[in-house]
């Protein structure tokens, strides 16, 4: 290799690495408002855009890790050429997941996604979801990630929700109330308030908040929260039943604390539930869980 070409390569690599490190450093050391003002510079915007793109790509790579590198190959005009047969033998297509505690392997990508773009709320939620889940079982790390995410994204209701749920899981009801109330105040944030995911986010917040009100004996406030859910989802029969029971002044069949514990158990059980379509299908799989922070396809 020509020495000049080699130096050009080295210079390019070194320049790219320094630019990337600098952009990460800037975003880690500045407040959100500083970041907003810095966005007006052309260089800032260019670096920011590339960091966001890289962060999104790394989240996709984490999903790829979770599926043991199996990529989705939908919509091919033909599927049985010589090359495709060998390719499939080299990189199998069957639908598999990282088993048990090995799911920690994908956390490296999520960490890099967060370093690359600390404003990537999806990466923050995925990190906390898996860290707090039964496979990794590190709720303290999940809390650290969420608190760091909250500092970088103070207007995110999603992070407040996760912090509330985590506090509930740890039995810290006072903190859970505080985070869930903050989440309700911040909702819908940057989302369209009529979007389905935004409504689901609000439903989760209201459900946990209503159960906490019930637990505190504040039945009118609990009823208010349940009715808010019905305004968004009028067909929720379990909510109708609960409202009727509470209005009649009776004790619900499932106590508030038992219900949120069941919801948290279900969330843990859903940890690892996959939204990816089975081979050959073009439709994504929905697990039925009302609020997943795993990977969305």
């Amino acid at each position, binding site marked *: 290799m020509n020495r000049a070409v080699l130096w050009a390569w080295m210079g390019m690599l070194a320049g790219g690495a320094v630019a990337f490190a600098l952009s990460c450093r800037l975003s880690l050391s500045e407040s959100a408002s500083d970041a907003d003002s810095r966005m007006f510079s052309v260089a800032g915007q260019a670096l920011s855009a590339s960091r966001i793109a890289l962060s999104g790509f790394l989240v996709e790579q984490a999903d790829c890790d979770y599926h*043991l590198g199996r990529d989705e190959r939908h919509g091919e*005009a033909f599927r049985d050429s010589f090359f495709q047969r*060998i390719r499939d033998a*080299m*990189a199998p297509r069957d639908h598999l997941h990282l088993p048990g505690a090995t799911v*920690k392997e994908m*956390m490296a990508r999520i*960490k890099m996604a967060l370093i690359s773009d600390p404003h990537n709320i999806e990466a923050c939620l995925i990190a906390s979801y898996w860290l707090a889940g039964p496979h990794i079982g590190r709720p303290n790390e999940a809390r650290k990630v969420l608190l760091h995410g909250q500092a970088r994204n103070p207007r995110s209701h999603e992070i407040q929700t996760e912090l509330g749920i985590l506090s509930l899981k740890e039995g810290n009801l006072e903190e859970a109330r505080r985070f869930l109330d903050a989440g309700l105040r911040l909702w819908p944030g940057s989302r369209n308030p009529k979007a389905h995911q935004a409504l689901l986010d609000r439903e989760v917040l209201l459900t946990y908040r209503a159960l906490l009100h019930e637990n505190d004996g504040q039945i009118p406030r609990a009823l208010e929260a349940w009715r808010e859910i019905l305004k968004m989802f009028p067909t929720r029969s379990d909510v109708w039943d609960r409202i009727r029971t509470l209005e009649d002044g009776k004790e619900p069949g499932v106590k508030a604390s038992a219900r949120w514990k069941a919801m948290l158990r279900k969330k843990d059980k859903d940890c690892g539930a996959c939204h990816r379509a089975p081979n050959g299908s073009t439709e994504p799989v929905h697990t039925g869980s009302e609020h997943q922070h795993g990977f969305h396809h």
Partner: protein
Amino acid sequence: MNRALVIAQTTWLEMLRKKDVYVLFILLGVMLVTLVSLNIFGLGGLVVYVKDIGLLMTWLFGLVLAVNISSRGLPQEEQRGTIFPLLAKPITRFELILGKWLGAWVVTSLSLLMFYLLIAVVVALRGGALSPMAMAQGYILHAATLAILCAIALLFSTRMNADATAATSYVVAAAAFLVTPQIPAFLKNATGFSADAFLALYHVLPHFEILDMRNRLIYDQGPAEWRAFVLALAYAACYTVALLLAAWLAYRAKRFSRADIG
């Protein structure tokens, strides 16, 4: 064959003298050390990302070495005028082509072996492992990929200068890596001439995806079935031979003039 080996030897000696391979080796080492020093949420023993990024860099460095070494072999001889004493010796043009390709391929394949061993050592130090059989298969198929890349660059270098050869080879390699595996998906919505053109490209461009065993190595899926491995290797061998024959056809009647010496 012996004469081709003598020509290949000059490439090996040149690469020993130059520092390209060492620089890339150190660069890979630094990257791997940086990667393993990252604190990933206090979780220890993570190796998938080290293997993935390490192997990606190995593929990238292999491509750079293969194209850069092969693309300047013949043009350099012509530019320096050393092609005249070379062709005055009892050596055929096919032997010259074969020697240049062999020299470039062996050098890049040995560099590749160093890169693979470095990754295996770093992964082992991190508490992970690479299946030896899968690694051997992955290395052999990767070396076969480099054989094709060296032959592509050599083919272009018979009629272009070194810079044009390198640029064209990179374009072909990028198309083979990024476009070829996607063509069946493109064809889903293509009709008429564009569908025919895509189909022709699908069969003409090299299929590096069938020689890529990174997923098996990264996710510990063990070796590939031998039939598929042998077929992939046979494909790479046939493609390389076809390219070398094309290079010989392009070079055998080429005339040189001392006025062209730069």
